[in-house]
């Protein structure tokens, strides 16, 4: 890479670019992470005790999670819910991406993409708040459903996982739509026509031709959505109920309410490790390499 940079920009400039990149990666990414790991391996001590006999490396902070039933349940529930959010987002995004890539005229597609992007000019918190209003007990959604006579009394959308799911699907839909759209768009129309011509119906054409072709895009979308969902704080905090607590909220509590940074760091690191592990597993199952995702 350095050789390419030097060929293009000359020695000094290439050196500067690499140095800046190196500083950014080391100072802004690697060192804080290492510090978090270091934190997580030390007990939570009063300032006076730091450096004293009690200040030694320990795995006690990690053990906490496995000894605390509630935290452990929330931990796995977060993973499971993130999987659900990912699948739900894919289910919503795939038809949309197909429509944008192969059905819509260029004008319709441009309009549709614009409509998808405009809400993302607004801050995520505000967008989530708007869902809070829409889904509220006396909110517009309940009003409309009552007016249409579909329900007799308002539904408490925000009391279970429903609100969090809706909010997250909405918050991360673009991260799914665009990779899937890009992948489907590169499919030759004649492939679909050939499958139809050979007798395949809609479902089989998608299962055998479109989805295999779009797999790298689908994998990219799923990985991004899953990571964002598992690490999300705003959506569960705003749209969640006590029953739908997210693991990130517990990490937040350790840091800012419990004042126990060491414990929080251990939890955060566990979440990171589990997410990476889970993603590698999924990539292995679907035979997608890291290189495919970059495409």
């Amino acid at each position, binding site marked *: 890479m350095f050789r390419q940079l030097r060929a293009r920009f000359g020695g000094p400039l290439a050196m500067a670019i690499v140095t800046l990149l190196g500083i950014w990666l080391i100072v802004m990414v690697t060192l804080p992470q290492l510090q978090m790991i270091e934190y997580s391996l030390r007990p939570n001590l009063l300032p006076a005790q730091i450096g004293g006999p009690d200040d030694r490396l320990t795995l006690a902070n990690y053990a906490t999670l496995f000894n605390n039933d509630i935290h452990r349940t929330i931990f796995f529930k977060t993973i499971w819910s993130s999987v659900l959010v990912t699948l739900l987002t894919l289910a919503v995004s795939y038809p949309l991406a197909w429509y944008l890539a192969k059905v819509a005229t260029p004008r319709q597609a441009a309009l549709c993409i614009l409509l998808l992007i405009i809400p993302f000019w607004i801050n995520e918190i505000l967008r989530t708040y708007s869902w809070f209003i829409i889904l509220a007990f006396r909110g517009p959604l309940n009003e409309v459903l009552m007016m249409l006579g579909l329900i007799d009394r308002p539904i408490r959308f925000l009391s279970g996982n429903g609100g969090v799911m809706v909010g997250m699907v909405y918050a991360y839909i673009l991260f799914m739509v665009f990779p899937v759209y890009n992948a489907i768009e590169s499919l030759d129309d*004649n*492939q679909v*026509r050939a499958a*139809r*011509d*050979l*007798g*395949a119906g809609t479902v089989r054409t998608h299962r055998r031709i479109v989805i*295999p072709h779009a797999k790298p895009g689908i994998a990219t979308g799923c990985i991004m959505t899953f990571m964002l969902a598992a690490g999300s704080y705003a959506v569960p905090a705003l749209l969640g109920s006590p029953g739908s607590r997210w693991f990130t909220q517990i990490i937040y509590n350790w840091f800012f309410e419990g004042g126990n940074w060491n414990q929080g760091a251990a939890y955060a690191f566990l979440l990171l490790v589990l997410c990476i592990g889970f993603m590698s597993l999924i990539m292995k199952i679907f035979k997608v390499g890291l290189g495919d995702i970059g495409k």
Partner: protein
Amino acid sequence: MDGSVRLDEVVMRFGDFTAIEKTSLAIGSGEFFSFLGPSGCGKTTLLNIVSGFLVPSEGQVYIGDEPMAGVPVNRRPTAMIFQNLALFPLMTVFENIEFGLEVRGVDKRKRREVSERLLALVALEGSGPKMVTELSGGQKQRVAIARALAVEPRVLLLDEPLSALDLKLRQHMRTELKAIQRKTGITFIYITHDQGEALNMSDRVAVMSAGRIQQVADPMTLYRQPATGFVAAFVGENNRLQARVIDCEGERVRLDGGALGELAGRVSGTARLSNGEAAVLFVRPEHLRPVEPQASGPKLEAEIEAVHFEGAWVMLETRLIASGEKLRVQLGHELSRSQAGAFSVGQRLAFGFDPADAVVLPDDGSPVVDETGEVVEGRPASAGGTHV
């Protein structure tokens, strides 16, 4: 298995543009039928109507006497070979060929049997487990044929399938396609802008221009008895000479060629000519011979502008002295050898032809169009004409 195809007053419109004018046509079961025309003439549109990818604005398509209205692509007894082949790149050769059978719920052992048999038919035994991306152009071509044949179509639709191949391979595949068609007895409907392919393989050819079928005939008739000026100019090469009819005697026509003097030709097919009518005399380059200036019969005096040596023949580009029009002359082996090197630019020669070889058609003002749809001579195409 009746593979006959009938188009009954089919019209195709896209918005204001009429891609196919009202067309009726019957293709026999087991026939090798080609649609020949420049790009944009509507031949691919017709193919898509037969396959079901397009629904005609008017009219009806029948396959084996069954109306196809409302029958979707995946339920028609047709299979298509696409111009870019559209093989499934993520599948092996076996999986490609067996795709149609898999859709039809044929069990795995039977599927493999069929694909092995088809691979043998297209001379690709043993290539089944390969990925299609590992194959050469010609091999991909064969897999595409096998994949289409696997679903046992009554009609095979071929959309310029040879255009991506190089010349040698293309000529080889012509022979092979024809052989496969004879062996299987399936109706082939072949789309091409390459007249060599159409004339070489087909039982019958429909020449199309601007959404209209100009003539349907066997290749020899197309060449000898063109029905319209378009066909005369598009199929094979032809020199056009504007003239006026003096009189007709049976097939033979005497013409007043203006500055060119008196000319003669033969009425093409069933064309009707009346005395004094404007007509076009078509003389093929290969029918022109150098003659003595004193010789009797029609002769054309011209000055050579370029000499192209092609090996088996010599092509002379000349300009008529009397009218300034271009005249192309092709001299075969025996003539070009005797005069090898004797032709030079600027030389003046007289060319004669046998009136029985030159056809006369009423002047319909049709433009001369090359294979890409470009107007090369005559008046430009009118609105909604030869381009799409």
